[in-house]
Protein backbone atom coordinates (compact mmCIF):
# COMPACT_ATOMS: atom_id res chain seq x y z
CA UNK A 1 0.00 0.00 0.00
CA UNK A 2 1.40 3.36 -1.07
CA UNK A 3 0.39 5.63 1.84
CA UNK A 4 2.58 8.42 0.51
CA UNK A 5 0.56 8.46 -2.71
CA UNK A 6 -2.74 8.44 -0.82
CA UNK A 7 -1.63 11.36 1.34
CA UNK A 8 -0.44 13.20 -1.76
CA UNK A 9 -3.77 12.65 -3.53
CA UNK A 10 -5.79 13.86 -0.53
CA UNK A 11 -3.55 16.92 -0.14
CA UNK A 12 -3.83 17.75 -3.84
CA UNK A 13 -7.62 17.38 -3.73
CA UNK A 14 -7.96 19.56 -0.62
CA UNK A 15 -5.72 22.34 -1.96
CA UNK A 16 -7.49 22.27 -5.32
CA UNK A 17 -10.85 22.75 -3.59
CA UNK A 18 -9.52 25.54 -1.37
CA UNK A 19 -7.99 27.43 -4.29
CA UNK A 20 -10.84 26.81 -6.71
CA UNK A 21 -13.96 27.50 -4.64
CA UNK A 22 -13.53 31.27 -4.17
CA UNK A 23 -12.79 31.46 -7.89
CA UNK A 24 -15.86 29.35 -8.66
CA UNK A 25 -18.14 31.58 -6.54
CA UNK A 26 -17.09 34.77 -8.29
CA UNK A 27 -16.92 33.29 -11.78
CA UNK A 28 -20.24 31.47 -11.27
CA UNK A 29 -21.99 34.59 -10.04
CA UNK A 30 -20.53 36.74 -12.78
CA UNK A 31 -21.60 34.25 -15.48
CA UNK A 32 -25.09 33.99 -13.95
CA UNK A 33 -25.69 37.73 -13.93
CA UNK A 34 -23.55 39.36 -16.58
CA UNK A 35 -25.15 40.85 -19.69
CA UNK A 36 -21.73 40.73 -21.37
CA UNK A 37 -21.57 39.40 -24.92
CA UNK A 38 -18.34 37.60 -23.99
CA UNK A 39 -20.24 35.25 -21.70
CA UNK A 40 -20.67 32.30 -24.12
CA UNK A 41 -16.95 32.41 -24.91
CA UNK A 42 -15.98 32.40 -21.22
CA UNK A 43 -18.42 29.56 -20.55
CA UNK A 44 -16.96 27.57 -23.43
CA UNK A 45 -13.40 28.16 -22.19
CA UNK A 46 -14.35 26.88 -18.73
CA UNK A 47 -15.99 23.72 -20.09
CA UNK A 48 -13.08 23.03 -22.45
CA UNK A 49 -11.09 20.79 -20.05
CA UNK A 50 -14.15 18.55 -19.85
CA UNK A 51 -14.43 17.90 -23.58
CA UNK A 52 -10.74 17.83 -24.54
CA UNK A 53 -8.74 14.61 -24.12
CA UNK A 54 -6.47 14.78 -21.04
CA UNK A 55 -3.49 14.40 -23.38
CA UNK A 56 -4.42 17.65 -25.16
CA UNK A 57 -4.87 19.51 -21.87
CA UNK A 58 -1.63 17.99 -20.59
CA UNK A 59 0.24 18.92 -23.75
CA UNK A 60 -0.80 22.57 -23.59
CA UNK A 61 -0.18 22.79 -19.84
CA UNK A 62 3.28 21.31 -20.37
CA UNK A 63 3.95 23.91 -23.05
CA UNK A 64 2.52 26.76 -20.99
CA UNK A 65 4.28 25.82 -17.75
CA UNK A 66 7.52 24.33 -19.11
CA UNK A 67 10.99 25.71 -18.29
CA UNK A 68 11.08 27.81 -21.47
CA UNK A 69 7.60 29.28 -21.06
CA UNK A 70 6.84 32.67 -19.53
CA UNK A 71 5.08 31.10 -16.52
CA UNK A 72 7.86 28.54 -16.07
CA UNK A 73 10.63 31.15 -16.20
CA UNK A 74 8.77 33.46 -13.81
CA UNK A 75 8.14 30.63 -11.36
CA UNK A 76 11.78 29.52 -11.47
CA UNK A 77 12.94 33.10 -10.86
CA UNK A 78 10.63 33.40 -7.84
CA UNK A 79 11.01 29.99 -6.20
CA UNK A 80 14.23 28.60 -7.67
CA UNK A 81 12.55 25.40 -8.89
CA UNK A 82 10.63 24.28 -11.98
CA UNK A 83 6.84 24.43 -12.19
CA UNK A 84 6.19 21.28 -14.22
CA UNK A 85 6.98 17.94 -12.55
CA UNK A 86 6.48 19.55 -9.12
CA UNK A 87 3.60 19.40 -6.66
CA UNK A 88 2.92 23.12 -7.20
CA UNK A 89 2.63 22.48 -10.93
CA UNK A 90 0.15 19.71 -10.22
CA UNK A 91 -1.97 22.13 -8.18
CA UNK A 92 -2.04 24.63 -11.07
CA UNK A 93 -2.98 21.88 -13.54
CA UNK A 94 -5.58 20.45 -11.18
CA UNK A 95 -7.25 23.85 -10.65
CA UNK A 96 -7.52 24.38 -14.41
CA UNK A 97 -8.78 20.86 -15.14
CA UNK A 98 -11.43 21.13 -12.41
CA UNK A 99 -12.79 24.53 -13.51
CA UNK A 100 -15.93 23.07 -15.17
CA UNK A 101 -16.68 20.83 -12.18
CA UNK A 102 -16.55 23.75 -9.74
CA UNK A 103 -17.92 26.65 -11.79
CA UNK A 104 -20.87 25.04 -13.56
CA UNK A 105 -22.84 23.95 -10.46
CA UNK A 106 -22.12 27.34 -8.84
CA UNK A 107 -23.32 29.17 -11.93
CA UNK A 108 -26.55 27.13 -12.07
CA UNK A 109 -27.12 27.87 -8.37
CA UNK A 110 -26.62 31.63 -8.80
CA UNK A 111 -28.94 31.58 -11.81
CA UNK A 112 -31.52 29.99 -9.51
CA UNK A 113 -31.41 32.97 -7.15
CA UNK A 114 -33.11 35.09 -9.77
CA UNK A 115 -33.08 38.81 -10.57
CA UNK A 116 -36.08 39.62 -8.29
CA UNK A 117 -34.29 38.65 -5.12
CA UNK A 118 -31.17 40.52 -6.20
CA UNK A 119 -33.27 43.62 -6.89
CA UNK A 120 -34.99 43.24 -3.50
CA UNK A 121 -31.65 43.01 -1.74
CA UNK A 122 -30.46 46.13 -3.53
CA UNK A 123 -33.64 48.05 -2.65
CA UNK A 124 -33.05 47.15 1.00
CA UNK A 125 -29.86 49.15 0.72
CA UNK A 126 -27.51 46.20 0.62
CA UNK A 127 -24.24 46.70 -1.21
CA UNK A 128 -23.56 44.07 -3.91
CA UNK A 129 -20.96 42.56 -1.59
CA UNK A 130 -23.42 42.33 1.32
CA UNK A 131 -26.11 40.92 -0.97
CA UNK A 132 -23.71 38.24 -2.16
CA UNK A 133 -22.67 37.33 1.36
CA UNK A 134 -26.04 37.44 3.09
CA UNK A 135 -28.60 36.62 0.42
CA UNK A 136 -27.13 35.00 -2.67
CA UNK A 137 -24.39 32.82 -1.25
CA UNK A 138 -26.61 31.10 1.35
CA UNK A 139 -29.12 30.32 -1.40
CA UNK A 140 -26.46 29.17 -3.84
CA UNK A 141 -24.57 27.12 -1.27
CA UNK A 142 -25.89 23.70 -2.38
CA UNK A 143 -24.57 24.33 -5.89
CA UNK A 144 -21.25 25.63 -4.62
CA UNK A 145 -20.85 22.60 -2.35
CA UNK A 146 -21.76 20.22 -5.16
CA UNK A 147 -18.95 21.82 -7.13
CA UNK A 148 -16.57 21.31 -4.23
CA UNK A 149 -17.52 17.63 -3.89
CA UNK A 150 -17.13 17.00 -7.60
CA UNK A 151 -13.78 18.79 -7.63
CA UNK A 152 -12.47 16.79 -4.67
CA UNK A 153 -13.58 13.43 -6.07
CA UNK A 154 -12.42 14.23 -9.60
CA UNK A 155 -8.97 15.31 -8.38
CA UNK A 156 -8.54 11.98 -6.57
CA UNK A 157 -9.27 10.18 -9.82
CA UNK A 158 -7.48 12.40 -12.33
CA UNK A 159 -4.91 10.44 -14.31
CA UNK A 160 -3.90 11.64 -17.76
CA UNK A 161 -3.10 15.27 -17.06
CA UNK A 162 -1.37 14.41 -13.78
CA UNK A 163 0.83 11.86 -15.56
CA UNK A 164 1.82 14.29 -18.31
CA UNK A 165 2.42 17.34 -16.13
CA UNK A 166 3.63 15.53 -13.00
CA UNK A 167 5.75 12.67 -14.27
CA UNK A 168 4.92 10.28 -11.38
CA UNK A 169 7.78 11.18 -9.00
CA UNK A 170 7.26 9.34 -5.69
CA UNK A 171 6.33 11.70 -2.83
CA UNK A 172 6.14 14.67 -5.18
CA UNK A 173 3.74 13.98 -8.04
CA UNK A 174 2.87 10.28 -7.89
CA UNK A 175 -0.77 10.38 -6.85
CA UNK A 176 -2.75 7.29 -5.88
CA UNK A 177 -4.16 6.90 -9.39
CA UNK A 178 -0.62 6.94 -10.83
CA UNK A 179 0.62 4.57 -8.14
CA UNK A 180 -2.07 2.06 -9.13
CA UNK A 181 -0.94 2.30 -12.76
CA UNK A 182 2.67 1.84 -11.62
CA UNK A 183 1.80 -1.28 -9.61
CA UNK A 184 -0.09 -2.78 -12.56
CA UNK A 185 2.99 -2.23 -14.73
CA UNK A 186 5.13 -3.87 -12.06
CA UNK A 187 2.74 -6.86 -12.37
CA UNK A 188 1.96 -6.37 -8.69
CA UNK A 189 -1.77 -6.93 -9.00
CA UNK A 190 -2.30 -7.46 -5.27
CA UNK A 191 -1.05 -3.99 -4.37
CA UNK A 192 -2.89 -2.46 -7.33
CA UNK A 193 -6.11 -4.16 -6.22
CA UNK A 194 -5.72 -2.98 -2.63
CA UNK A 195 -5.11 0.61 -3.70
CA UNK A 196 -7.95 0.57 -6.22
CA UNK A 197 -10.30 -0.65 -3.49
CA UNK A 198 -8.98 2.02 -1.14
CA UNK A 199 -9.54 4.76 -3.74
CA UNK A 200 -13.07 3.47 -4.21
CA UNK A 201 -13.76 3.57 -0.47
CA UNK A 202 -12.10 6.96 0.09
CA UNK A 203 -13.96 8.51 -2.85
CA UNK A 204 -17.26 7.11 -1.64
CA UNK A 205 -16.55 8.21 1.93
CA UNK A 206 -15.52 11.72 0.85
CA UNK A 207 -18.71 12.22 -1.11
CA UNK A 208 -20.93 10.63 1.54
CA UNK A 209 -19.27 12.61 4.33
CA UNK A 210 -19.80 15.87 2.51
CA UNK A 211 -23.44 15.06 1.86
CA UNK A 212 -23.83 14.15 5.54
CA UNK A 213 -22.13 17.34 6.74
CA UNK A 214 -24.14 19.61 4.47
CA UNK A 215 -27.39 17.89 5.40
CA UNK A 216 -30.86 18.65 4.13
CA UNK A 217 -31.48 22.06 5.63
CA UNK A 218 -29.44 23.88 3.04
CA UNK A 219 -31.23 26.81 1.47
CA UNK A 220 -34.15 26.90 3.88
CA UNK A 221 -32.75 29.80 5.86
CA UNK A 222 -31.69 33.09 4.34
CA UNK A 223 -29.75 35.79 6.11
CA UNK A 224 -28.70 35.88 9.75
Amino acid at each position, binding site marked *: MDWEALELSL*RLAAITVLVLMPLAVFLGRWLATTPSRARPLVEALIVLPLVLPPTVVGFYLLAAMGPDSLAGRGWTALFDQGLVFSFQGLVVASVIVNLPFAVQPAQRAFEGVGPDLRAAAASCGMSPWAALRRVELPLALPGVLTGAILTFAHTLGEFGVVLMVGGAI*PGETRTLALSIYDRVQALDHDAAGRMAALLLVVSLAAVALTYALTGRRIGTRVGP
Partner: protein
Amino acid sequence: MRRYCLLLLLLLALAAPAPATADATPAIAAAASLRTALDEAAIAFRRSTGRSVRLTYGASGSLVQQIRNGAPYQLFLSADEAHVVALAADGRTLGGPADRGRNFAVGRLVLFAPPRSPLQVDSELQGLRRGLADGSVRRLAIANPDVAPYGARAREALQHADLWDAAKPRLVYGENISQTLQFATSGGADGGLVSLSLVRTPGVAGRYALIPADRHAPLTQRMVLLPGAGTTARRFHDWLLGPAGQRILSRHGYTRP
Protein backbone atom coordinates in the same frame (compact mmCIF):
# COMPACT_ATOMS: atom_id res chain seq x y z
CA MET B 1 -22.77 27.32 9.61
CA ARG B 2 -20.77 25.14 12.00
CA ARG B 3 -20.96 22.28 9.52
CA TYR B 4 -19.25 24.34 6.83
CA CYS B 5 -16.57 25.46 9.24
CA LEU B 6 -15.96 21.81 10.09
CA LEU B 7 -15.73 20.99 6.41
CA LEU B 8 -13.31 23.85 5.83
CA LEU B 9 -11.19 22.75 8.78
CA LEU B 10 -11.04 19.23 7.40
CA LEU B 11 -9.88 20.55 4.03
CA LEU B 12 -7.27 22.78 5.67
CA ALA B 13 -5.97 19.84 7.69
CA LEU B 14 -5.65 17.77 4.52
CA ALA B 15 -3.94 20.62 2.70
CA ALA B 16 -1.31 21.08 5.40
CA PRO B 17 2.19 20.62 4.00
CA ALA B 18 3.70 17.19 4.45
CA PRO B 19 6.79 16.76 6.62
CA ALA B 20 9.80 17.47 4.44
CA THR B 21 11.08 13.94 3.95
CA ALA B 22 11.04 14.26 0.18
CA ASP B 23 14.03 16.59 -0.07
CA ALA B 24 16.52 14.18 1.48
CA THR B 25 15.75 11.39 -0.99
CA PRO B 26 16.69 12.18 -4.59
CA ALA B 27 14.30 11.44 -7.46
CA ILE B 28 15.81 9.05 -9.99
CA ALA B 29 14.45 8.31 -13.46
CA ALA B 30 15.03 4.80 -14.82
CA ALA B 31 14.07 2.74 -17.86
CA ALA B 32 11.09 0.48 -17.16
CA SER B 33 13.17 -2.61 -18.01
CA LEU B 34 15.37 -1.88 -14.98
CA ARG B 35 12.45 -1.97 -12.55
CA THR B 36 12.96 -5.28 -10.73
CA ALA B 37 16.75 -4.96 -10.64
CA LEU B 38 16.71 -1.37 -9.37
CA ASP B 39 13.95 -1.96 -6.82
CA GLU B 40 16.19 -4.63 -5.31
CA ALA B 41 19.30 -2.46 -5.68
CA ALA B 42 17.57 0.45 -3.89
CA ILE B 43 16.74 -1.78 -0.92
CA ALA B 44 20.28 -3.17 -0.74
CA PHE B 45 21.70 0.36 -1.08
CA ARG B 46 19.56 1.56 1.81
CA ARG B 47 20.69 -1.35 3.96
CA SER B 48 24.34 -0.66 3.37
CA THR B 49 24.32 3.16 3.41
CA GLY B 50 21.13 4.17 5.24
CA ARG B 51 20.19 6.42 2.30
CA SER B 52 17.01 6.15 0.22
CA VAL B 53 16.23 7.01 -3.39
CA ARG B 54 12.90 7.59 -5.13
CA LEU B 55 12.61 5.74 -8.44
CA THR B 56 10.33 6.64 -11.32
CA TYR B 57 10.13 4.17 -14.21
CA GLY B 58 9.12 4.84 -17.80
CA ALA B 59 10.19 4.46 -21.42
CA SER B 60 13.68 5.96 -21.73
CA GLY B 61 12.52 8.31 -24.49
CA SER B 62 9.60 9.60 -22.40
CA LEU B 63 11.90 10.19 -19.43
CA VAL B 64 14.29 12.19 -21.64
CA GLN B 65 11.35 14.40 -22.62
CA GLN B 66 10.57 14.94 -18.92
CA ILE B 67 14.20 15.81 -18.17
CA ARG B 68 14.29 18.29 -21.07
CA ASN B 69 11.13 19.87 -19.64
CA GLY B 70 12.81 20.40 -16.29
CA ALA B 71 11.79 17.32 -14.27
CA PRO B 72 13.86 17.39 -11.05
CA TYR B 73 15.62 14.01 -11.46
CA GLN B 74 19.17 13.76 -10.16
CA LEU B 75 20.17 10.56 -11.95
CA PHE B 76 18.94 9.06 -15.21
CA LEU B 77 19.39 5.37 -16.08
CA SER B 78 18.63 4.73 -19.72
CA ALA B 79 18.12 1.44 -21.54
CA ASP B 80 19.72 3.04 -24.59
CA GLU B 81 22.95 4.98 -24.50
CA ALA B 82 21.86 7.23 -27.38
CA HIS B 83 19.43 9.05 -25.08
CA VAL B 84 22.20 9.85 -22.60
CA VAL B 85 24.56 10.96 -25.35
CA ALA B 86 21.85 13.29 -26.70
CA LEU B 87 21.25 14.78 -23.24
CA ALA B 88 24.99 15.34 -22.86
CA ALA B 89 25.22 17.02 -26.26
CA ASP B 90 22.63 19.54 -25.10
CA GLY B 91 24.60 20.19 -21.92
CA ARG B 92 21.85 18.75 -19.73
CA THR B 93 24.13 16.44 -17.73
CA LEU B 94 25.98 17.24 -14.52
CA GLY B 95 29.36 17.70 -16.18
CA GLY B 96 28.09 19.46 -19.31
CA PRO B 97 28.68 18.25 -22.91
CA ALA B 98 31.81 16.30 -21.92
CA ASP B 99 29.89 14.23 -19.34
CA ARG B 100 28.30 11.33 -21.21
CA GLY B 101 27.78 9.17 -18.15
CA ARG B 102 28.84 5.58 -17.65
CA ASN B 103 27.83 2.24 -19.16
CA PHE B 104 26.77 0.03 -16.31
CA ALA B 105 25.17 -3.06 -17.86
CA VAL B 106 24.05 -4.68 -21.10
CA GLY B 107 20.48 -5.91 -21.41
CA ARG B 108 19.13 -8.86 -23.37
CA LEU B 109 15.99 -9.34 -25.44
CA VAL B 110 13.81 -12.45 -25.09
CA LEU B 111 10.84 -13.91 -26.93
CA PHE B 112 8.22 -14.55 -24.27
CA ALA B 113 5.01 -16.59 -24.36
CA PRO B 114 2.42 -16.83 -21.56
CA PRO B 115 1.42 -20.32 -20.30
CA ARG B 116 -1.48 -21.15 -22.61
CA SER B 117 -0.16 -19.43 -25.72
CA PRO B 118 0.15 -21.37 -29.01
CA LEU B 119 3.48 -19.59 -29.61
CA GLN B 120 6.56 -21.84 -29.47
CA VAL B 121 9.55 -19.87 -28.25
CA ASP B 122 13.06 -20.43 -29.63
CA SER B 123 16.13 -18.26 -30.22
CA GLU B 124 15.89 -18.45 -34.00
CA LEU B 125 12.23 -17.29 -33.99
CA GLN B 126 11.18 -20.39 -36.01
CA GLY B 127 8.14 -20.93 -33.81
CA LEU B 128 7.13 -17.31 -34.27
CA ARG B 129 7.57 -17.68 -38.03
CA ARG B 130 5.20 -20.69 -38.04
CA GLY B 131 2.73 -19.01 -35.71
CA LEU B 132 2.54 -15.93 -37.90
CA ALA B 133 2.21 -18.04 -41.07
CA ASP B 134 -0.58 -20.30 -39.81
CA GLY B 135 -2.34 -17.50 -37.96
CA SER B 136 -2.13 -19.07 -34.50
CA VAL B 137 -0.19 -16.02 -33.25
CA ARG B 138 -2.77 -13.28 -33.54
CA ARG B 139 -1.12 -10.61 -31.40
CA LEU B 140 2.55 -10.01 -30.62
CA ALA B 141 3.52 -7.33 -28.11
CA ILE B 142 6.59 -5.12 -28.47
CA ALA B 143 7.42 -1.81 -26.84
CA ASN B 144 6.88 1.37 -28.84
CA PRO B 145 10.06 1.52 -30.99
CA ASP B 146 9.97 5.32 -31.05
CA VAL B 147 10.39 5.83 -27.30
CA ALA B 148 11.43 2.47 -25.82
CA PRO B 149 14.89 1.03 -26.62
CA TYR B 150 13.68 -2.57 -26.23
CA GLY B 151 11.00 -1.77 -28.81
CA ALA B 152 13.59 -0.49 -31.28
CA ARG B 153 15.77 -3.57 -30.67
CA ALA B 154 12.73 -5.86 -31.06
CA ARG B 155 12.03 -4.29 -34.43
CA GLU B 156 15.65 -4.90 -35.46
CA ALA B 157 15.49 -8.55 -34.35
CA LEU B 158 12.28 -9.07 -36.34
CA GLN B 159 13.81 -7.36 -39.37
CA HIS B 160 16.94 -9.51 -39.04
CA ALA B 161 14.79 -12.66 -39.12
CA ASP B 162 12.87 -11.20 -42.08
CA LEU B 163 9.68 -11.33 -40.04
CA TRP B 164 8.91 -7.61 -39.73
CA ASP B 165 6.43 -7.42 -42.60
CA ALA B 166 4.60 -10.56 -41.43
CA ALA B 167 4.53 -9.42 -37.83
CA LYS B 168 3.67 -5.76 -38.36
CA PRO B 169 -0.12 -6.15 -38.75
CA ARG B 170 -0.20 -8.33 -35.60
CA LEU B 171 1.83 -6.03 -33.35
CA VAL B 172 0.51 -4.32 -30.25
CA TYR B 173 2.68 -1.59 -28.81
CA GLY B 174 3.29 -1.07 -25.11
CA GLU B 175 4.14 2.45 -23.99
CA ASN B 176 7.18 0.98 -22.24
CA ILE B 177 8.62 -2.50 -21.72
CA SER B 178 6.67 -3.18 -18.47
CA GLN B 179 3.38 -2.51 -20.19
CA THR B 180 4.50 -4.70 -23.10
CA LEU B 181 5.12 -7.62 -20.76
CA GLN B 182 1.81 -6.92 -19.07
CA PHE B 183 0.05 -7.21 -22.46
CA ALA B 184 1.69 -10.61 -22.92
CA THR B 185 1.13 -11.96 -19.40
CA SER B 186 -2.50 -10.86 -19.28
CA GLY B 187 -3.21 -12.96 -22.37
CA GLY B 188 -3.99 -9.85 -24.43
CA ALA B 189 -1.17 -10.92 -26.72
CA ASP B 190 0.06 -14.42 -27.57
CA GLY B 191 3.60 -13.39 -26.78
CA GLY B 192 6.04 -10.55 -26.92
CA LEU B 193 9.60 -9.42 -27.33
CA VAL B 194 10.60 -8.12 -23.91
CA SER B 195 13.61 -7.78 -21.65
CA LEU B 196 15.25 -10.71 -19.89
CA SER B 197 15.32 -8.63 -16.71
CA LEU B 198 11.52 -8.40 -16.57
CA VAL B 199 10.60 -12.01 -17.40
CA ARG B 200 12.68 -12.96 -14.36
CA THR B 201 10.34 -10.93 -12.14
CA PRO B 202 8.91 -13.19 -9.44
CA GLY B 203 5.36 -14.15 -10.31
CA VAL B 204 5.78 -13.94 -14.08
CA ALA B 205 4.69 -17.28 -15.52
CA GLY B 206 5.55 -18.30 -19.07
CA ARG B 207 8.26 -19.59 -21.38
CA TYR B 208 11.01 -17.51 -22.92
CA ALA B 209 13.99 -17.86 -25.24
CA LEU B 210 16.99 -15.56 -25.36
CA ILE B 211 17.47 -13.73 -28.66
CA PRO B 212 21.16 -13.92 -29.71
CA ALA B 213 22.81 -10.57 -28.99
CA ASP B 214 24.08 -10.18 -32.58
CA ARG B 215 20.56 -9.94 -34.00
CA HIS B 216 20.17 -6.33 -32.91
CA ALA B 217 22.18 -3.32 -31.79
CA PRO B 218 23.46 -3.81 -28.24
CA LEU B 219 21.19 -2.80 -25.36
CA THR B 220 23.90 -0.89 -23.56
CA GLN B 221 22.48 0.61 -20.37
CA ARG B 222 23.99 3.99 -19.61
CA MET B 223 23.44 6.25 -16.63
CA VAL B 224 24.34 9.86 -16.07
CA LEU B 225 24.12 12.26 -13.15
CA LEU B 226 22.01 15.32 -13.91
CA PRO B 227 22.52 18.96 -12.88
CA GLY B 228 21.57 19.30 -9.23
CA ALA B 229 22.67 15.78 -8.27
CA GLY B 230 23.32 15.53 -4.52
CA THR B 231 25.46 13.23 -2.41
CA THR B 232 22.93 10.38 -2.25
CA ALA B 233 22.42 10.28 -6.02
CA ARG B 234 26.20 10.29 -6.59
CA ARG B 235 26.72 7.50 -4.10
CA PHE B 236 23.93 5.39 -5.65
CA HIS B 237 25.57 5.94 -9.06
CA ASP B 238 28.95 4.73 -7.74
CA TRP B 239 27.37 1.89 -5.75
CA LEU B 240 25.71 0.48 -8.91
CA LEU B 241 29.09 0.35 -10.63
CA GLY B 242 30.62 -1.41 -7.61
CA PRO B 243 30.57 -5.15 -6.84
CA ALA B 244 27.32 -5.14 -4.84
CA GLY B 245 25.39 -3.27 -7.54
CA GLN B 246 26.85 -5.35 -10.37
CA ARG B 247 25.99 -8.58 -8.54
CA ILE B 248 22.32 -7.59 -8.38
CA LEU B 249 22.29 -6.54 -12.03
CA SER B 250 23.82 -9.82 -13.19
CA ARG B 251 21.27 -11.77 -11.14
CA HIS B 252 18.56 -9.94 -13.10
CA GLY B 253 19.96 -10.99 -16.46
CA TYR B 254 22.32 -8.13 -17.27
CA THR B 255 25.87 -8.68 -18.47
CA ARG B 256 28.79 -6.40 -17.69
CA PRO B 257 29.47 -3.60 -20.16
